């Protein structure tokens, strides 16, 4: 962990608690009826190994939770949480529409969102970058490397 991350822990214990809950839920799912008849021919059933791993997961998550609670807590600081959430929302939106509108417009959208969220305002720079960078990438991958990118084909574009 980089030293600059030390003060970014306003939710101490939350991730460990989520890990305990997720591990527990996954462990319960291994007892579903559909797994009862699986694993024919194996020394142990199909769920034997995952249960070992999940058991370790839950145990370690509980230990992590305990260590989080007993460790001295860091004071929450005002960080750009809104920026992260906004960026995440933009990414979800862009992925949601990428199949329909294609890679280039969706990638340009994410590019613009990132630049603006990070407070960069020089439009003479970011506008051409947001337009040309995804387009250039699409050209390189689609036409030169033969890697098809998500969404409508760009064959007609170049």
């Amino acid at each position, binding site marked *: 962990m980089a030293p600059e991350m030390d003060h970014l822990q306003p939710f101490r214990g939350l*991730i460990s608690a989520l890990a305990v809950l997720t591990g527990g839920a996954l462990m319960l799912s291994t007892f579903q009826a559909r797994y009862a008849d699986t694993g024919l021919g194996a020394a142990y059933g199909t769920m034997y190994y995952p249960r070992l791993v999940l058991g370790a997961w839950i145990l370690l998550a509980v230990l992590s939770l305990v260590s989080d609670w007993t460790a001295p807590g860091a004071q929450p600081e005002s960080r750009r949480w809104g920026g992260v959430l906004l960026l995440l929302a933009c990414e979800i939106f862009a992925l949601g529409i990428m199949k329909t509108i294609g890679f280039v417009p969706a990638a340009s959208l994410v590019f613009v969102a990132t630049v603006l969220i990070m407070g960069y305002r020089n439009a003479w720079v970011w506008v051409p970058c947001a337009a040309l960078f995804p387009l250039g990438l699409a050209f390189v991958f689609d036409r030169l*490397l033969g890697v098809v990118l998500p969404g409508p084909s760009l064959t007609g574009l170049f």
Partner: protein
Amino acid sequence: MESLGDSLALVLTFSALFAMVIGTAVGILVGALPGLGAPIALTLLLPFTFGLDQIPAIMLLLGAYAGSMYGGSISAILINTPGTLAAASTILDGYPMAVRGEASRALGFSLVASTFGGLFSTIVLIFAAPQLAAVALKFGPVETFATIFLAMTCIATISRGSMVKGLLAGSIGLFLATVGSDPVTGDMRFDFGYFPLTSGIGIVPVIVGMFALTEVYVRVLQKAGPPVVTRDVAGITIPGWSEWRPRIGLLFKSSGIGSLVGILPGTGSAAAAFISYAEAKRSSPRSDKFGTGEPDGIISAEAANNAVTGGALVPTLALGIPGDGVTALMVTSLIIHGVTPGVHLMSRNPELVIALFIALFIVNGIMFFEALLAARLFSRLLRTPEPLLLAGVIVLCVVGAYGTRGNFFDLWVMLVASVVGFGLRLQDVPLPPLIIGLVLGPQFELTMRQGLIISDGSFLAFFTNYPVALGIFVVTGALLLFPILFRSRRHRPADPKGS
């Protein structure tokens, strides 16, 4: 000799050499950009390998790997910010030299030391990897299971953050590897009736999300710092022989430390650089000048962190066991391109292994000349606004996650992995053990279950019938217990009688 000729023919092609030149340049540049480093350099270049043949693709990534290790020193010297954590100790003497107006000379010491460290560790790799593979060739499933268990424990316990969190990350990675079909019976597991999960969770989208996208979120989260002041540099000045002669021993020692630390799973280049720097400071006749711009400080750190590249590839190529996140990415990339690292690689595909060795030599040479010729350009590129760089990283992440399998579901996996990785980073959970768990998970499960079949379902036989495995398990147990015992001794209250 026939293999050597075949290997030379593989490496000395235009496409392979061109890939090395580009990979090394990108590696130096990404390594120089503060906070990015080798994992992101490889992650960003990975999609470009999808359309390439096997050899150029691997050469591109090798170039990026070596280049990014050196690149970190450029920003450490010029802007007092390490491009990679591995270059953190380079700052201690590199930046004071730059402040004194000796930036070109500091970059020269760094470049020669990095190149020497890289070449030295390649020689170590050439001698050590085949020996290790020859031993491992005698391993059955139980010994292989024990070795992976040891490596995973090593990585989780030595990783930054607490041991419990490292092990938790490793267990999450091992679990993610179980999604999809059972490797023994073919039964579906944890697909929850959702078809895309039946093919398992892709390693590349998880790596892209956890390494690259997470880094972007962290940057967005942090408040903008003061604008970076880059010291102008006209070029690199290579110090003369009179300056090197008293430092040759240091160069060898630091490269040796780096290679050795690189071989140990989980330690990484930052640890190598710090250990080497500390040892140089302890033993150097100029130790009183350390921290004030003493070239020994730069040499010890840079030779060691570049020497990690060859060392880390020893267990990666010989056993198929990556020692850190970067080599996990290398293993994944090799598998994508039809090469499975491990004990059989040396015997079945010696041309390719020798080609990799030759390529590492060439890459270090290319790195030397590229840095020498383009130092001014690299220092200018450090001024690129961070928001533009990070926006570009996100777009490349999309291409990287999607391009491996052409599966749109992988983009959602990348996004979920980035959120999970971000949360884990905020809680000091190291991410490399998770990635390595995901990469090694299928082999770990398969060897364990094969061992159980051989031993009629008895775990006890793993300890009683296999002495080599028993030895490895003992070492693993010691590794787990040592930090606990060490901590309890350290926290024991002082004897009131003073005895």
